[in-house]
């Protein structure tokens, strides 16, 4: 009897291990094959990517991963960095900050990654940043826009960088667009209280919007994963705003839009780069028509750099790259560029090289890192028509 139980326990343990292995395989599948072959550390350079490959923001991690792997494959075909091939290892954090911290620690301490790429979401990048700092491994976030990501209190985190603009700017973009282009005075805000990105962006938007002479008539909140937003929306409806600012992530935003329309609210919604996902349109099904959101780039931009990238991406994955894919591509390329300039491949040397990034011509714009390790770039505003995003305006910093 006892031995039978031991056998059962052993089988269970094996099953658990088996599942974990499968999870890793699953998280790194569906990408070009060249970057997959695991090779011993020393002969190759390891890019550790932490991303939400599953969970509420699954398209964020997936797109970023595709962008990174496209950049790495191109570089490997050119001979890699300093004669070494690059390997990408992607770990899934399921959209949870605590999992992002675990994944980052694992990539740094067990796999000895030369650099960390990720996360998209600010709350998860915030969980990874101290790990990058204390282990002296540089980290580049492609799209975390909350200003706190590269900050440790008042001083800049030495090892943390990003290749995107930050929310004080992104909030300003939408506030300006609403006041000057849409000529709106009364706006309601609906923010995700549990999300650093959403709270920050809502605050920066409100500040600028008030400065420009607008009025915030209602400031409501929800929690990510809520299914019912009608209480907040009904309260907002009573205040009769001209637009609603919803700086959340796409799953929630799409549900909010649907429920707003169900309550007979016809106001446009406005938001930030957290909206950018094909899932937004799948769930909203037209409910977001007439709405606007700020983003890092638009695939409609006729500039040759962007069109070339769109063609390459389409050839590799059969889809138009969203901003997350583009910034993932740019983040990987900034890392590659820095490593080529670095005097050796130790953490501190790579860090110094990244810090000196100046005028790098990325797809999403020219990337120059300022003293706070942020990229200063222009933003675009996209309007949603017939359940698809259309370019509306460019706003410069």
């Amino acid at each position, binding site marked *: 009897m006892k031995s039978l139980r031991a056998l059962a326990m052993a089988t269970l343990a094996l099953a658990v291990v088996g*599942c974990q292995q*499968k*999870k890793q395989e*699953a998280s790194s599948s569906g990408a070009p094959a060249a970057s997959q072959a695991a090779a011993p550390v020393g002969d190759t350079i390891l890019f550790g990517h932490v991303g939400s490959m*599953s*969970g*509420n923001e*699954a398209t964020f991690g997936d797109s970023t991963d595709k962008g990174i792997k496209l950049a790495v494959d191109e570089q490997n075909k050119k001979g890699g960095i300093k004669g070494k091939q690059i390997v990408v290892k992607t770990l899934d954090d*399921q*959209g949870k900050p605590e999992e992002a911290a675990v994944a980052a620690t694992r990539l740094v301490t067990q796999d000895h990654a030369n650099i960390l790429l990720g996360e998209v979401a600010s709350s998860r990048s915030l969980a990874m940043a101290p790990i990058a700092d204390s282990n002296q491994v540089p980290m580049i976030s492609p799209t975390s826009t909350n200003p706190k990501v590269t900050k440790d209190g008042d001083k800049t985190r030495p090892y943390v960088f990003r290749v995107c603009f930050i929310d004080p700017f992104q909030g300003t973009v939408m506030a300006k667009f609403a006041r000057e282009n849409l000529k709106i005075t009364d706006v309601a805000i609906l923010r995700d*209280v549990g999300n650093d990105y959403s709270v920050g962006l809502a605050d920066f938007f409100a500040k600028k919007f008030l400065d420009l002479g607008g009025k915030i008539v209602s400031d*409501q*909140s*929800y*929690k990510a*994963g809520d*299914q*019912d937003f*009608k*209480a*907040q929306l*009904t*309260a907002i*409806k*009573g205040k009769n705003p001209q637009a609603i600012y919803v700086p959340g992530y796409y*799953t929630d935003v*799409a*549900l909010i839009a*649907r*429920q707003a329309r*169900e*309550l*007979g609210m016809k106001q446009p919604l406005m938001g930030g780069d957290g909206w950018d996902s094909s*899932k937004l349109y*799948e*769930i909203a099904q037209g409910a977001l028509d007439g709405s606007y959101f700020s983003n890092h780039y638009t695939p409609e931009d006729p500039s040759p750099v962007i069109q070339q990238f769109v063609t390459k991406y389409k050839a590799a994955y059969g889809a138009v790259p969203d901003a997350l894919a583009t910034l993932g591509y740019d983040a990987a390329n900034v890392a590659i560029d820095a490593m080529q300039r670095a005097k050796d491949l130790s953490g501190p040397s790579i860090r110094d090289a990244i810090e000196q990034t100046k005028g790098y011509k990325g797809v999403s714009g020219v990337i120059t890192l300022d003293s706070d390790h942020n990229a200063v770039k222009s933003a675009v505003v996209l309007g949603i028509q017939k359940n698809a995003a259309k370019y509306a305006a460019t706003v410069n910093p």
Partner: protein
Amino acid sequence: MTEFLQHLVNGLSVGTIYALIALGYTMVYGVLKLINFAHGDVYMVGAFSGLYLARGLGVDQSPSLFKALLVFFGSIVVCAALGVIIERFAYRPLRHQPRLTALITAIGVSFLLEYGFQLPPVTQGSVPFPPGPTPRFFPEPFPRVDYAPFGVHVSNYDMVSLAVAVGLMFLLQFIVYRTKFGTAMRAVSFDSSVAGLMGINVNRVISWTFALGSGLAAAAALLVAGSRPTINPLMGLMPGIKAFVAAVFGGIGNVPGAMVGGLVLGLAEEYVAGYALSSYRDGIAFAMLILVLLLRPAGLFGRVRAEKV
């Protein structure tokens, strides 16, 4: 005024869902004195079985009333079976152990379902199984029609939900008080060993109670998924806890109490979020729980039974 009425409509539509889930908690507690914490996750499984059935039948390409009904009753059957299985393998072996053991097992079953559904997929298809942590889009079972009498927006979904929920509650009331099985259930609830001596098959009554409660959870899940169309493996967590609060509020073990508790909780949340601070929306449920436990530990409709010495 319009705003007040709109909140009323919204609150009722959320409240009926809480009430339907709360009924499952309260029935199981009534017969077993067990708080079945896995109940919220049975609700989640209900939504997913609905999704698999809907995809299997091709509801998104060609919705029809027949398919909608098939999905609805199919998932109720799946969940009823799941409830019976959970009771048979997780709770029955522990029936004569201390109550705390069963309670902890219930939490274990809850985790098993939540995280089991987040494992990497073993089957392929448009929605793999297990579905993983990514939210899934639930197809609309029938076209949505909006009505706006006096500026209050009501959809056919809200009406169907309310009608189905109220109908199911009356059906349950009928089963518990007007049928032989209901009498047996109440007998087991009163004293299971004496009921056994009177020739009632206690195990069967308990199994059916689980089937009934889990079926109601599946019904609630489909009513939610039809109008708020994203579902994920952790969706049962919050509604499960809130329905538990509703059950305690109404007096756990008491069927009408669970209904009233669910509706009151739904309305309270709605009005607090609408007129006061929306960030206190979830807080209100737990504030109510604390107040009820302090002021009326047996709940609104609960009776304090004197301990017999």
